[in-house]
């Protein structure tokens, strides 16, 4: 431990530098979103809220935002519906190939997303699923179920099996044990899994880029396209709102259940 003297000072300096490095670009977006200029530049020549007003006049972005919210909502519900039974089976059951299945189900976390995107493109083209809701939902499930599974198995892992055994010994059949004991005790894990799945789906660009079509677009992809053709600070204004939305979600969760604890870290 660094406890005192110049060592401590430099340690603090290092931490501050790291935070600036990580958060700097995000923080920079805030002043730029209030720029009066018509292009992204630093420093802005004047200040204005006109880019926030201009957002209201962007039907494409509005449509994309609506799509993204619906998509993230559906994906969250489905990912939990798939991952919860899987997590229970994987952490409570004992059957041959258990570890292999766990590895298989979490493997997409390790694959480069660009590879996944390309593979999905090839499959979806032959099935006519490009630019369709089922296609997008499937692709996002592929990406988010491993996250949900990880968080839920961690939540189940910290729950002592003897508590469930006690419930069974008191006369509770397996379903009652699950709904009266297991599920309430893993509620923080469920909420955390839902939040992570929602955010991952809401922010996902790489895979989505491959499979969106002209009729169906998501907000991150729409923004990506927007920046390709224009360089005005509208994107910064949208980004600020997205950052604030994400931050709000995380703060609410942290307050409500202790997100860090639910994810499996040392909760405070």
């Amino acid at each position, binding site marked *: 431990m660094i406890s005192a003297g110049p060592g401590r000072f430099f340690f603090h300096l290092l931490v501050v530098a790291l935070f600036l490095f990580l958060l700097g670009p995000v923080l920079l977006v805030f002043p730029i979103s209030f720029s009066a200029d018509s292009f992204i530049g630093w420093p802005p020549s004047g200040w204005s809220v006109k880019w926030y007003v201009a957002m209201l006049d962007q039907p494409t972005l509005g449509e994309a935002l609506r799509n993204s919210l619906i998509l993230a909502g559906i994906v969250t519900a489905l990912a939990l519906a798939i991952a919860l039974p899987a997590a229970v089976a994987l952490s409570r059951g004992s059957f041959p190939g258990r570890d292999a299945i766990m590895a298989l189900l979490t493997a997409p976390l390790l694959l480069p997303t660009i590879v996944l995107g390309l593979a999905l493109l090839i499959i979806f083209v032959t099935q006519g699923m490009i630019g369709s809701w089922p296609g997008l939902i499937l692709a996002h499930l592929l990406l988010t179920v491993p996250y949900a599974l990880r968080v839920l198995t961690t939540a189940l892992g910290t729950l002592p099996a*003897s508590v469930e*055994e006690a419930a069974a*010994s008191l006369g*509770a*059949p397996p379903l*009652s044990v699950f709904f009266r004991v297991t599920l309430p005790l893993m509620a923080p894990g469920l909420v955390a899994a839902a939040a992570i799945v929602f955010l991952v789906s809401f922010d996902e660009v790489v895979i989505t880029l491959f499979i969106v079509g002209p009729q169906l677009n998501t907000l991150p992809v729409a923004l990506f396209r927007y920046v390709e053709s224009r360089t005005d600070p509208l994107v910064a204004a949208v980004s600020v709102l997205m950052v604030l939305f994400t931050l709000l979600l995380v703060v609410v969760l942290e307050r409500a259940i202790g997100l860090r604890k639910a994810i499996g870290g040392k909760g405070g």
Partner: protein
Amino acid sequence: MAPHLELHALEKRFGATRAVQALTLAVGKGELIGLLGPSGCGKTTTLRMIGGLMPASAGRIVVAGRDVTALPPHQRDMGIVFQNYALFPHMDVAQNLSFGLEMRKIPAAERAARVTRALAMVRLEAFARRKPRELSGGQQQRVALARALVIEPSILLLDEPLSNLDANLREEMRNEIRDIQQRLGITAVFVTHDQSEALAICDRIAVMRLGVLEQLGTPFEIYERPANEFVAGFVGRVNRAPAERLADGRLRLGELLVQGSGTAGPGPVTLMIRPHRIRLGDGALEGPGWNSATGTVTRRTFVGDLLSIEVTVGPATLLVEQHSFAGAPGPAPGDAVQLAWRAEDTLVFPARVPA
């Protein structure tokens, strides 16, 4: 008395290891039986099989004449107290107790009455609305006991229930468990690795080692007439000395000839004598039925209520324990002392064949 719980050739295998081997045991109605042994002896595995938390590999479990071997835990009607208590952390004390009654579809009014009675039984009436994390270890233990008993199970299973408590509380809880068990007249199985716990409260004790039942008997039988060297050594402290059984039945310990119990021999044997059964004497105790020897004190340890003295007698070193008395420091190292002990306190077992 017809047995209430019967184990017939019960067996548990994990791959090639046999954690419990051909265990046959009958427990009477209202009896408190202890499963005692070192870790890995199969006692907890046996308890889990009885409770249905672990399937048996072979054998049968019979409760009141009914074979329950294949029943899942929620149909076995057994109350289990777990080592870590396993209280439901998201429910308060009253809800913890009420859970089993709800599962049995007991009407709400009767549920409330039974919960109140069970809380009174463990003297926790004031804590009904507390969450488990707001209770001390001893209180959590009592909640766990009340929760297991409020359903009025046919059998109470206790898995090392005292091992997480500190020493003072352990003795108090041990007696409380025994009192409640006797008051309710409930058949109970008590798993422990602590021999003094088992001796203090069990009607009978099953001593286990490596999955095998070594001896089944009352605490008195287990302590005074251990079936073999393992039981003698595990239950209580004991002196061990190699000796030889002569043709006339006497035992030769170096130069010394003594009398002992048992029929092991003739040939090499192991003598076992409990330290507190040896008296430091002046020769007055010598007589028929008594062994005596002269030795040299090599160490003296004062542990408050006890004085423990190490005495070298020929080839053997014997530990002698006496109650300490004020003003009597006892013999010092180097002193010659006379020892005396009864022939029946000299346990004799066949010497273990060197592997």
